[in-house]
């Protein structure tokens, strides 16, 4: 199979690949090869980087050529076979009835038994991953389902975290009392942001939400009497369980199970929402705003509910975040956080719940376990966004919309 594709690469492609390699070598020359040492006043030449750039860009070019051959060949095949092979045939091994029970058992037992077999450190990482699953699902409502590109999602997360920290600091309220307040305040801020941007189209919306996120962070950083500024708020209690005293290890395990419940609850609600009346309105809004309004859908209300419901999850997870780390400061809520959550949604497939869960695990767990590559994390996220958009805009697992059939 591979050799068939390899044979498709002509001499012309190789020549083109060499031109591309030379171009990228020229492009990266001043920044990758030359390095200034201002202290000793010398120039460090890193010629080996040039070689790497040349080799990598050459092979990447060839790989992208092979990929496009493969895609063209597949389309050709699909065309010949006709359209009979669509939804049912796409993932046959998953739909096999004999596999259902084992899959279901494994899917429920592994997460439940996880803290019994792994160390507290691992459980802590898993809590983080589960938090991002919920954040991804929350943003998925706004970006994936309703098609409103929100780049300031982290603002609602910050609102939730600070709600818990401040209510606890001033009024001594506990985790369970603040959790709904955090969600409500998140929703309130969602509506607050939603109102002014209702009239804006996709690209303006992106910038304004980004600005909104930055405004929230800057206020938290500079309004010291309110939020204690950049030094943050510490000594936030972990969630309690009817006043039972717990050791650190126990409370982390407890938080893990809470997070697990939270994920299940989110998946349930989001899934129900997507197939509800309002969910179908969001899909319609995403596909074509004008047609959607012409069908009699109230645009204002639909957009606002999307913002509010998306923000609710971020607010609640913010409370969880404050309870998990017991210390928060504005530096945790930068634009990069928003970009990471967006990356989760895009990689997973916009609108697809399973896809978002899988990609949250990939994007949070991989950098944790591949520490050697930790510094390339953000570089990779950027590349993922581009590559996904160019080669597979539907994400890892494409969102298959429910089809409604009328019985004859």
């Amino acid at each position: 199979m591979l050799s068939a594709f390899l044979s498709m690469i002509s001499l012309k492609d190789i020549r083109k690949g060499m031109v591309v390699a030379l171009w990228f070598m020229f492009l990266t020359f001043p920044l990758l090869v030359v390095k200034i040492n201002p202290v000793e006043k010398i120039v460090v030449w890193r010629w080996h980087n040039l070689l790497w750039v040349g080799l990598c860009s050459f092979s990447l070019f060839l790989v992208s050529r092979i990929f496009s051959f493969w895609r063209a060949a597949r389309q050709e095949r699909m065309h010949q076979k006709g359209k009979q092979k669509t939804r049912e045939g796409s993932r046959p091994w998953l739909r096999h009835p004999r596999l259902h029970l084992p899959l279901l058992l494994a899917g429920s037992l592994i997460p439940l038994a996880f803290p019994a077999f792994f160390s507290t450190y691992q459980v802590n990482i898993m809590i983080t991953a589960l938090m991002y699953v919920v954040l991804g699902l929350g943003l998925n409502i706004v970006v994936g389902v309703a098609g409103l590109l929100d780049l300031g999602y982290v603002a609602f997360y910050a609102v939730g975290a600070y709600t818990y920290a401040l209510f606890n600091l001033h009024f001594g309220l506990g985790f369970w009392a603040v959790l709904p307040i955090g969600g409500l305040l998140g929703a309130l801020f969602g509506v607050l942001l939603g109102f002014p941007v209702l009239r804006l189209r996709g690209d303006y919306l992106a910038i304004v939400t980004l600005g909104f996120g930055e405004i929230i962070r800057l206020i938290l950083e500079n309004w010291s009497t309110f939020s204690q500024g950049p030094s943050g708020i510490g000594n936030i209690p972990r969630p309690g369980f009817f006043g039972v005293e717990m050791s650190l290890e126990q409370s982390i395990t407890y938080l893990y199970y809470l997070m697990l419940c939270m994920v299940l609850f989110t998946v349930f609600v989001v899934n129900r929402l997507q197939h509800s009346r309002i969910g179908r309105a969001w899909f319609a809004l995403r596909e074509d705003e004008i047609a959607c309004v012409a069908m009699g859908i109230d645009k204002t209300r639909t957009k606002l509910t999307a913002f509010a419901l998306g923000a609710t999850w971020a607010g609640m997870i913010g409370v969880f975040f404050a309870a998990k780390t017991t210390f928060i400061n504005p530096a945790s809520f930068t634009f990069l956080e928003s970009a990471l959550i967006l990356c989760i949604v895009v990689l997973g497939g916009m609108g697809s719940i399973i896809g978002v869960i899988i990609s949250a695990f990939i994007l949070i767990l991989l950098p944790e376990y591949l520490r050697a590559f930790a510094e390339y994390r953000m570089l990779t996220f950027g590349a993922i966004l581009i590559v996904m958009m160019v080669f597979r805009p539907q994400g890892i697992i494409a969102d298959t919309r429910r089809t409604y059939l009328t019985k004859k």
Partner: protein
Amino acid sequence: MEYFIELVFSGLTRGAIYALLALGYTMVYGIIGLINFAHGEMYMIGAFTALVVSTALSFYGLPLPALLVLTALAAVVWAAAYGYTVERVAYRPLRNAPRLAPLISAIGMSMFLQNYVLLAQTSNFLPFPALIPDFAFMEPYAAFIGSTDLAILVVSALVMLLLMVMIKYTRTGTAMRATAQDRKMAQLVGINVDRVISVTFIIGSALAAVGGLLIASHIGQINFSIGFIAGIKAFTAAVLGGIGSIPGAVLGSFVLGLTEAFATGYVSSDYEDVFAFSLLVLILIFRPAGLLGKAAIEKV
């Protein structure tokens, strides 16, 4: 009064830098309707290339005028090359994709380029050499305006004038205007639209590099993240003036620059960015088409 004049000049300087960036945003938006999120990175890459080239050359003992010319040339050439490549890699394959796709790809590009420079160079602030000398004739006015401020105002005015002439009178400029008006029609009358789009990215990136070079020698230090916030503010300026309109971008930039200068001068410098973003939100609520822009009518 003296303080007031000082603020006016500081606002004009900021405005000039924003204008150099905002022109790139507005030209790209005018032609392909995309917010080029990675545009701020062109400014950063221009400044970084200038830093590397000028410092390296100064170790070899080149005189200042030659250094300045070579540095400016390198910054412009490489930033333009990056602009061209970014368009080819991240935007051209998405020409007919849904609206959200190129936008996400642009955000990815911005993150990629920032971290590329971070990994290739350093995350620390690097000192930028003083490329623009202190002019002797500026001595009496030093209280209001520095030599670098003057250089920024003069150079950016010249560059903008050049751009206006180019767009108005050359063949390429005419092709750009035609493409901005109607891409399909432009294609029908024989304009190579892909080439025009490439040229737009090249010009926009070159302008951003000039801005990056000027502001870096004004402030005296740079790091990999300078492009992001500058890019957003320049975009704010472009929206303020009416995105897609070239005179609008310049006007919007000066309005934003002056607003920021007065707000930081008289209110508080902690909230500098908050003022800019609040201004953006206010404009979008009350006049979404900007100061000079026309409201787009969507036809079905």
